[in-house]
């Protein structure tokens, strides 16, 4: 079927023709459209008027490139009593698993990105965009090193007159815990398990930068390109990054508790230790 519904508790996600399309929570009556996609920003090579390349310190995108799978993405769906998973091979170097756990009211999304190809001699900064119908009116909130969420307004600073020369980079913020946005009725939150860059470039949309591989030094001190490789024997490839983020949509005012408690649980995961025991006295 072209429409697939996953989740066996209050939260259900609908995938339509291989793409996430709806978020439904039967407990709090949240029923909204949601879309997720991947893009990359080609890294500026520094040959422009200001000679500023994209590098470790400076994010200087040179356009936007959508990563669109050719045709419908076949999904692999795993169903069971404790959790359900949707696996998607977005392109040859982006893989994603969406998980819904019984009794949980958020979606966990695991991404595996890389090695980012640079055969075309273009550095790439890979981003996922999650789009809701929240009317955020240029406003979103990002954490401050895991502490208070601070209000951000696109293309605006409260303490000086901002001249926007970089419409994307000028609105990027560090995301250590999460990012969220609201309108009159809804709160749309995303938490992360690692420090990433992020923003809301369009109303209703949250984006996270998941991986970067760049070919030029930005000239700000590090003196080399952000182009790390890993070698097994004599084969070297770009790095693969694997991480998770968590998506939840709440009625207005209900998201803060989840952001704090889930945020703590992401930061301090359960510690698992193993030991072997022989014989019958395992208790």
């Amino acid at each position, binding site marked *: *079927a*072209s429409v*697939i519904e996953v989740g066996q508790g209050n939260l259900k996600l609908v995938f339509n*023709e*291989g793409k996430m399309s709806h978020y439904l929570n039967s407990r709090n009556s949240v029923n909204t459209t949601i879309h997720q996609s991947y893009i990359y920003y080609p890294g500026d090579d520094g040959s422009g008027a200001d000679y500023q390349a994209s590098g*470790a*310190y400076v994010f200087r995108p040179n356009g936007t490139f959508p990563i669109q799978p050719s*045709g*419908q*993405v*076949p*999904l*692999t*769906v*795993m*169903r*069971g*009593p*404790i*959790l359900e*998973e949707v*696996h998607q*091979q977005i392109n040859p170097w982006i*893989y994603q698993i969406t998980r819904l*756990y019984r*009794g949980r009211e958020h979606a966990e999304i695991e991404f*595996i990105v890389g090695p980012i190809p640079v055969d075309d001699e273009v550095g790439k900064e890979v981003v996922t965009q999650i789009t809701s119908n929240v009317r955020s009116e240029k406003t979103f909130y990002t954490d401050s090193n895991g502490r208070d969420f601070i209000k951000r307004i696109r293309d605006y600073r409260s303490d000086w007159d901002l001249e926007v020369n970089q419409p994307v980079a000028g609105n990027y913020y560090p995301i250590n815990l999460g990012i969220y946005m609201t309108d009159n009725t809804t709160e749309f939150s995303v938490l992360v398990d690692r*420090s990433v860059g992020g923003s809301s470039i369009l109303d209703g949309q949250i984006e996270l930068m998941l991986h970067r591989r760049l070919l030029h030094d930005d000239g700000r*001190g*590090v*003196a*080399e390109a*952000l182009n*790390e490789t*890993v*070698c*097994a*024997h004599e084969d070297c*490839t770009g790095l*693969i990054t*694997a991480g998770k983020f968590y998506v939840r949509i709440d009625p207005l005012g209900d998201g803060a508790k989840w952001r704090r*408690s889930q945020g*703590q*649980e992401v930061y*301090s995961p*359960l*510690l*698992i*230790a*193993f*030991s*072997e*025991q*022989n*014989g*019958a006295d*395992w*208790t």
Partner: protein
Amino acid sequence: TADSLGDALAIAQHHDAVTGTEKQHVADDYSKRLSIGYVEAEKLVASSLACLTDTTSNSKCSNPSTNFEQCPLLNISYCPPSEVELSQGKYLVVLVYNSLGWNREDVIRIPVISASVIVRDSKGSIVESQLLPILNISLEIRKLHTMAYLGISPGVNPKFWLVFPVSVPPLGFSTYIISSAEKSVSGHPVMSTTYETHES
């Protein structure tokens, strides 16, 4: 000494390490020092957990006997302690520690090589569990990273993720026991139903 743990903690907070704005040889050095710190912390935690679970010794617990191992590479489905064939009479003890101040209900996932296992809690009651096949992409990443970072072949590939719910008290631990399943016992893990959509 505990110096290397202090070094690792300092590096983990350094702005260049957090943002990746260090030179490559410095990144390599950071990786090594973080790893050394992790190993030191792992020993300390293993010793502490052994004392917590040891009901026979006195309060000093100077010489804990149980050896606990952690799996820092669970994210690439590499966990030698859980990837063992469990013969009759051999049990894999899984201790789950909660460092937060509230009770937690969560789900644990560990790689296993056999579907014929059973999970019990510390009272001996069977715990509901689920098996998910480990897909090729995970095995490829597992192989690449164990070869590159550990310089070892990862050995026999695990076939499944064993998933089960856990309940852990605040600042405390729970134990779960995994054993090979006797055919007569009910409560085996549920194998996930897996299907693929069509490509158009």
